[in-house]
């Protein structure tokens, strides 16, 4: 693991991505305790403010401090995106591995269904699920997790199938190792790698998808300061105070970039070939 980290940090993508992610995580954890104001406190006399000494990133339509809201919203945005990805990855991994190991008719049927579900554009599928569940941050999380599942199942299955055919697995079988040993020691580490890479890049999608759902009014709800919701609330005031939109919009893009960079760095670190 330390070796992987070293290799990861040697790639510029990995280093930059990890740095931004760590900074965002610190924001999310420390969040409200280092915020100068309560994220919900009104300052009626300081509405639509630009950056100033009192309000570092400006204020919104209620005069709420954008910096404090950004910090508070980091938790809703980041943790929810991570949780959604985790949910989709876990469900997909189980489904994909199951399909690969059971094989035969079960595999065929499962994969046909996965194909069919993937034929629904991702955002549309998420939208439909969230409409059924009702608009809220948690439901958006679940919907994104469900929408990720078929894709992750397909990735897991194909990786599991390739790994199974590898020489070292054949060698282990020839050595007469138990199947438990083969799965745990030989296959799992090789399956996990590509899945982690895929999942990392998906976090970036999850951040964007969460924000998009909130933007469409189907994700987090006021008075939450989830970043997508902040952008959605800022849109009507675009010409009054552009900071309301720039601050959370930039934050979303930055975190998404970080996870994309990190994922690419991770892939390079795992495949020293290129």
């Amino acid at each position, binding site marked *: 693991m330390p070796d992987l980290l070293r290799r990861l940090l040697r790639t510029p993508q990995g280093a930059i991505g990890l740095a931004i992610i760590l900074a965002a995580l610190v924001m999310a954890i420390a969040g409200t305790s280092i915020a100068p104001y309560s994220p919900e406190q009104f300052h009626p006399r300081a509405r639509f403010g630009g950056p100033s000494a009192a309000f570092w990133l400006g204020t919104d339509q209620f005069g709420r401090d954008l910096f404090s809201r950004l910090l508070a919203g980091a938790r809703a945005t980041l943790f929810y995106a991570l949780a959604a990805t985790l949910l989709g990855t876990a469900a997909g991994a189980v489904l994909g591995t199951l399909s690969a190991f059971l094989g035969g008719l079960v595999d065929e049927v499962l994969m046909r269904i996965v194909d*069919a579900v993937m*034929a*629904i554009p991702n*955002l549309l599928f998420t939208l*439909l699920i969230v*409409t059924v569940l*009702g608009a809220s941050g948690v439901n958006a999380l679940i919907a994104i997790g469900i929408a990720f599942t078929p894709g992750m199942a397909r990735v897991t299955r194909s990786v599991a199938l390739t790994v199974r055919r590898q020489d070292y697995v054949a060698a282990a079988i020839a050595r007469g190792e138990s199947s438990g040993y083969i799965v745990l020691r030989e296959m799992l580490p090789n399956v996990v790698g590509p899945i982690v890479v895929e999942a990392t890049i998906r976090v970036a999608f999850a951040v964007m998808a969460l924000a998009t759902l909130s933007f469409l009014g189907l994700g987090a709800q006021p008075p939450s300061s989830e970043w997508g919701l902040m952008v959605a609330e800022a849109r009507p005031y675009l010409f009054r105070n552009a900071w309301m939109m720039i601050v959370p919009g930039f934050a979303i893009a*930055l975190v*998404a970039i970080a996870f994309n960079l990190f994922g690419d760095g991770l892939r390079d670190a795992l495949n020293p070939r290129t």
Partner: protein
Amino acid sequence: MSASYLARRLLSIVFTVLVVSLLVFGITQVLPADAAVMLLGENATPEQLAAVRTRLGLDQPVWWQYLRWIGGVVRGDLGTSLETGLPVAGEMLTALGRSLLLAALSLLLMLVIAIPLGVIAALRRGKPADVAIGLGSYVGVSMPEFVTATLVLITLGHPEVGLLPATGYVPLTENFGEGLSRLVLPVLTVSVILVAHVARMVRSELVDVLGTDYVRAARLKGLSPRRVLFRHALRNALLPTITIVALDVGYLLGGIIVVEEIFAFPGIGRALIVAIQQRDLPSIQAGALIMATTYALANLCADIAYAALDKRIRYA
């Protein structure tokens, strides 16, 4: 490519559409608040609701509603919109046509921009140009459409600037120039993410191909770098890109939902959002089904194109 392969692919598309139809129908059945509520709005009384539900057939068993619906779909009848009372199929196919126009123009613009960018980045690997393109593409893929769209809207579409009409849609057949000018901003927005995505793909594929023995051999034969690039390397690098573009059609169909919403572009994405908000079940079902079918067909087309371009690939 054999006829049996095609037949099998078409059969799998039918299966896909069937699964999607079940899924979409199931989802629309459990939507909170049914169409009668939305139809009557705040004026609904219980007896009015009951009357409307009977009129719409919402009081019949679910399996019967599904069979009736799917039977209609097979005959090309996608039902009647609860909202407008007009046949859904016509509305949705018109909207799809507009979305496809938007998608096609975006793909075209993307190809024109992304391939040269990818080639430049691959040839200048590690140089500032490569780094800049790489960074730009990271920003491109990481910006949600609504952020990009809003940025485009307040810069190029700013009414006080008066550069371009921000929104709305005019059919090209009605007024070609005006119709085209209104497509500029949505096409630009959709292209941003696609360009970022595909330029990266072209770059990495090209870097791989340039490193192969095949290209090295061509160089050693004394072919000009230009000839090596265009006749040998690029052709091979672009093949996998086709698959990516086909996958991007899926993104396109989903992603333009937001873009259509912001630019008030009456495509299928917006039609669906409106249908979902109004609980217009036949429209939701038809829209989702049409989108899924389009996506499946796009993938099939990509496979055929891939096979046609790459003679080495043989399908059993």
